[in-house]
């Protein structure tokens, strides 16, 4: 309650200052130039974005009109044949499942690493470790793709066969033609890719936990783990959700690593060990060069869908974070 009114008050105070600044800016030439420059660049960004959107939709529309299949539910992708038949079902499925699997694998590990660095590791180790994690977060994804293709895929062949032999009662691990170039491998590569960024942000979030809250928990006789559960994790909740969403965003849009690892094949299957599968970004990377005019339009349309999915994920994350806003 108070926090909201405080924010409200802060908001009005800020507006007041801004108003005062605006009034003053009419006086001086330098201020006026600056005001025009900032407003101009703000408007410019919006105009550019609108232009891009209009351009993409305009390019996509003819292809969408030519589509003889259902663009949303069809699993085919033959936009350059006559009649053109294509749909995003398989791409959406592959994109979403590989990203969510990656998120599922990466988040717990990333948070555990961040907790270790923040609360358990001796100072010197903590410093070195967080440096390495920050460094990994900056590695370009082509590196992960090369590593995934050259090294990891072959290892995953055995893992896939093993899982299929021993755990095929889990629906995800059933099916035939299992191998390394599967959705699971892509997910693991994605997980490794997004782990550093999630970990790095979570660590920063944990550092924001007020010392007073940590001391309050300690003074009640909490052990280190209990302090983390009482004071750290609840406080860091929204920050961790944001970190995970940033990771998910990166996984959803990741192109090159997935394109290199997957042996693309069409068809939706829950069997994540099966070689094949496809994602929006990988599909665009793999087929754009050879695509005809209609094919490019179709790919652009699929890109727009990816954009919408990313937008929905982000909004969902914001909703999660906002739901308990009155508690910090």
């Amino acid at each position, binding site marked *: 309650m108070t*926090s909201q009114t405080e924010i409200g008050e802060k908001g009005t105070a800020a507006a007041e200052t801004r108003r005062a600044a605006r009034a003053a800016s009419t006086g001086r030439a330098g201020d006026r130039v600056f005001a025009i420059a900032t407003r101009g660049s703000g408007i410019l960004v919006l105009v550019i974005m609108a232009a891009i959107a209009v351009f993409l939709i305009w390019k996509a529309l003819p292809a969408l009109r030519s589509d003889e299949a259902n663009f949303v539910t069809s699993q085919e992708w033959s936009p350059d044949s006559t009649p053109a038949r294509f749909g995003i079902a398989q791409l959406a499925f592959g994109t979403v499942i590989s990203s969510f699997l990656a998120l599922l694998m990466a988040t717990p590990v990333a948070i555990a690493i961040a907790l270790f660095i923040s609360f358990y590791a001796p100072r010197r180790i903590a410093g070195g470790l967080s440096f390495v994690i920050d460094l990994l977060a900056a590695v370009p994804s082509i590196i992960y793709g090369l590593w995934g293709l050259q090294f990891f895929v072959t290892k995953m062949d055995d893992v896939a066969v093993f899982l299929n032999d021993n755990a095929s009662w889990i629906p995800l691990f059933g099916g035939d033609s299992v191998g390394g170039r599967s959705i699971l491998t892509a997910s693991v590569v994605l997980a490794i890719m997004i782990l550093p960024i999630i970990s790095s942000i979570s660590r920063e979030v944990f550092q924001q936990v007020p010392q007073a809250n940590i001391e309050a928990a300690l003074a*009640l006789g909490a052990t280190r783990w209990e302090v983390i559960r009482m004071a750290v994790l609840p406080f860091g909740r929204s920050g961790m959700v944001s970190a995970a969403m940033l990771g998910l965003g990166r996984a959803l849009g990741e192109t090159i690593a997935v394109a290199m690892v997957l042996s693309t094949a069409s068809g939706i299957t829950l069997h994540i060990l099966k070689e094949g599968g496809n994602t929006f970004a990988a599909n665009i990377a793999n087929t754009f060069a050879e695509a005809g005019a209609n094919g490019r339009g179709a790919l652009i349309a699929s890109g727009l869908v990816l954009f919408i999915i990313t937008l929905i994920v982000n909004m969902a994350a914001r909703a999660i974070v906002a739901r308990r806003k009155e508690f910090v």
Partner: protein
Amino acid sequence: MAKRIEVSGLHAYYGQVHAIEDISMSVEPRSVTAFIGPSGCGKSTFLRTLNRMHEVIPAARVEGKVLLDSEDLYGSEVDPVAVRRVVGMVFQRPNPFPTMSIYDNVAAGLKLNGMRGKSRLDEVVERSLRGANLWNEVKDRLNRPGAGLSGGQQQRLCIARAIAVEPQVLLMDEPCSALDPISTLAIEDLIAKLKEHYTIVIVTHNMQQAARVSDRTAFFNIAGTGQPGRLIEVDDTSKIFTNPVEKATEDYITGRFG
């Protein structure tokens, strides 16, 4: 419930900094002992050695003995976590858990101690909030955030949280310094009530407050900046404020300090 504290030859350090030097004194059960003295003389540091909170600061360490009814808190086999469960603490700035409701704040320590079951928790939460003179103000909004209360209410919430686990000793570090006079009065009334059950040690920079709430008063001082803080004298509050033995004490309480 209430236990006697006996401190002997206690030193505390922050890395190389020697913060308090050779303190020996005892604190009687079911009484209020006030620590007074100028800023930086080590009152907070000393208080935090009494529940082993000092050592949570990196490189901080303690030498000497603190006996709680003959058990040495710094004995080699003693777990600091266990110490903090019997010696509760209220901090200078109210620090309710911002992510928790009023109810959950009070129940936090109980849950640490493994108390389960809604009806039992309900009962203890109510008793603690009544004990902290806060029940009537919050009973209709137990599920609202604890951080939404006023400063004085938050501090009483922190007291309720501390007494919910029925500690032997309650340490308070300038609990009123961030509060308005009305809230301060409410807390002082509460201290008078709590001393029937608990051993209370309170740091205060307000000498009227020390005179009002405490039975015994300890005066601390430093010889100069960079010097360790020392205990100058400890005696009945009435004696300290009317007829102290040490000249430094008299100078301090009459405002002729420095």
